[in-house]
């Protein structure tokens, strides 16, 4: 293995890891706060990539606008998803809440994918990169400005999310609910307004991720499937509900996938990744940072 490969793997790790982190951190945020696994996150990525296509390619407007529109649209849709598919089920007894919401958010994802299919058709649409050009950093390893921006924006958003959670009133409220729902309620946190906010926020992160991923791949109704799968693998690996765990896992998964792509090619990188996850789960069923009691039988 040459040094070029090593540099290539490292660059790819940062790029892949940042984008996985952006989608997966939303899932973790939702799981930590609402105790649900949001299967509609993938469709938010897909919607984001269609927004990217509509604004960058169809209308020819600025990338900043695309990101803003994607943020607002997916925020609203995410909050609506919560109000429709999660809120009515809260506090009811007689079924497993986590599992039933797994199915309802999945149902929402089906609806989104098929509405997109109706509006935009099944064909893959090219999305122009948000920024063009690139630099050669070492021995033929190219770093496109698109990838650089993607990693930069993702990291900035994750830092922003961290600051929001640590410093603002609403962020504190989200963390309080995640740590102890009853205590948060007693302190007067408006939990039922907080839930749509959390889910909107997480969906908006995935939506912005979609604008960039649309340029890396394509915009089409199934564009969210693979990011969803990768985000799922990241959150299993990191441990559901743990934000630091998700971040470490995102970069670890990015590294494993980038190395596997260099070593054996794209076809087998996902199965190899899955094999690694299986091994990790056999040793640590709760993932890197999850709480042991949540995962064990």
């Amino acid at each position, binding site marked *: 293995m040459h040094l070029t490969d090593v540099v290539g793997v490292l660059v790819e790790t940062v790029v892949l890891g940042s984008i996985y982190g952006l989608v997966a951190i939303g899932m973790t945020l939702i*799981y930590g706060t609402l105790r649900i*696994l949001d299967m509609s996150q993938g469709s938010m990525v897909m919607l984001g990539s269609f927004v990217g296509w509509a604004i960058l390619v169809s209308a020819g407007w600025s990338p900043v606008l695309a990101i803003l529109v994607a943020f607002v649209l997916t925020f609203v849709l995410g909050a609506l998803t919560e109000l*429709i*598919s999660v809120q*009515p*089920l809260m506090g*009811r007894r*007689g*079924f*497993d809440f*986590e*599992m*039933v919401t*797994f*199915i*309802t958010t*999945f*149902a*929402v*994802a*089906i*609806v989104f*994918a*098929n*509405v997109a*299919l*109706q509006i935009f058709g099944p064909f893959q649409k090219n999305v122009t990169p948000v920024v063009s050009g690139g630099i050669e950093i070492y021995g033929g390893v190219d770093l496109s400005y698109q990838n650089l921006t993607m990693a930069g924006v993702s990291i900035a958003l994750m830092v922003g999310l961290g600051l929001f959670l640590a410093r603002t009133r609403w962020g504190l409220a989200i963390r309080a609910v995640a740590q102890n729902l009853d205590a948060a309620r007693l302190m007067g946190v408006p939990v039922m307004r907080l839930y749509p906010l959390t889910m909107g926020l997480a969906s908006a992160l995935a939506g912005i991720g979609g604008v960039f991923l649309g340029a890396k791949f394509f915009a089409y109704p*199934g564009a969210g*499937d693979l990011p969803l*799968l990768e985000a*799922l*693998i990241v*959150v*299993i690996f990191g441990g*559901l509900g743990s934000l630091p765990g998700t971040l470490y896992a995102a970069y670890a998964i990015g590294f494993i996938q980038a190395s596997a792509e260099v070593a054996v090619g*794209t*076809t087998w990188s*996902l*199965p190899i990744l*899955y094999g690694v*996850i*299986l091994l990790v*789960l*056999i040793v640590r*069923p*709760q993932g890197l940072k999850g709480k042991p009691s*949540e*995962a*064990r*039988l």
Partner: protein
Amino acid sequence: MTTTRPDGDPAADELGARIGRGRRLTIGEIAAIVALIAVVALIPLVWSNAYALGVLITAMIVLVLNVSWNFVLGIAGVWNFGQLAIYAIGGYGAGLLMLHTPLPPALAIVCGGLIAAGVSILLAFPTLRLHGIYTSLLTFSFAQVFLFVVVNDPKGLTGGTFGFPTVPGLYSFLSPTASLRAYFWTMLAVVVVATLTVAMIRGSRLGIALRTIRDAPSYAAARGISPLRYRVIAFAISGFIAGVAGALYLSYNQSFTTAAMGLTPMSIDVTMLVIGGLGTIWGPILGTSVLTGLQVSLVDYPGIQLTILGAILLVIVVFVPGGLVGLLSSIRRRVSAWVEAGDDDDDDRAAREEREALSAGAPTPRVPLEGS
């Protein structure tokens, strides 16, 4: 105190008293079921529309898959969302055997089921230490990764998105019409056998143990019921049935494509299970029938078909969590309570039946039924 049968396992017996072996069918009900099967069996004789028969055969294949999925998901309570990969493995396994060995097709189908059961057992082990949402994540990713591997199949073993190479049908020596009828009856027999097997297991000691692990895991473990052993058994049985369904899909279509196992079929199958009622015997049958009818009636509007499906799934889960079976049994309970009104123990009976329904895994639907 526990009463122990000489041959028995006291833990399972006491749980049997608590969770219930299920109601024995009356003679009338058995007769009705036999009559229903007989009527269905007569369909291909009076109705020779090839398109309609094809739809019914495909629906029955999906029904067998749903019976197996319902067993592991609803009865054993293991949130396995990798069932479509197991189904596909049964299909591809049987197909490879048909192409590369001199095995007769019928035997290859059984072997496909065995291969699927083997993979299903392997899948059971990593999920053993997980519960709830982690299980569904792991199995869902398993299905997606398997799909990804087949789509990108480098060696061309499975044919990828283009489909598996043509295999000989089960009844290729018959005329097309006769072959269609033979497939219909074969599928009907498989549906009956699979449903009966699952129904018998559900009421047996094995089924009681599985449902106890589902509803009260710590209690089950404390009574000496090994989650490990029973989860592996559940995966093996459901894997075998799913594998046979996949192999029959391959045999009937004489091919197998990735279209049979992506997110779209998964959403349709999950909707069928949830609409029918998870964990019940009639659930898969009702759900598959209703949704097949819906799909056929929406066949001219392929675009909105899945949108409607997703919306229905959402509405059913939110408003009728017990599915159609839960709804029907609740209506029946209310009607019989109304018929017997005046009896002194009326309320007791309703309460007891409510409890039984709950422990049988059919959550009471929370829709207002005051008018019925």
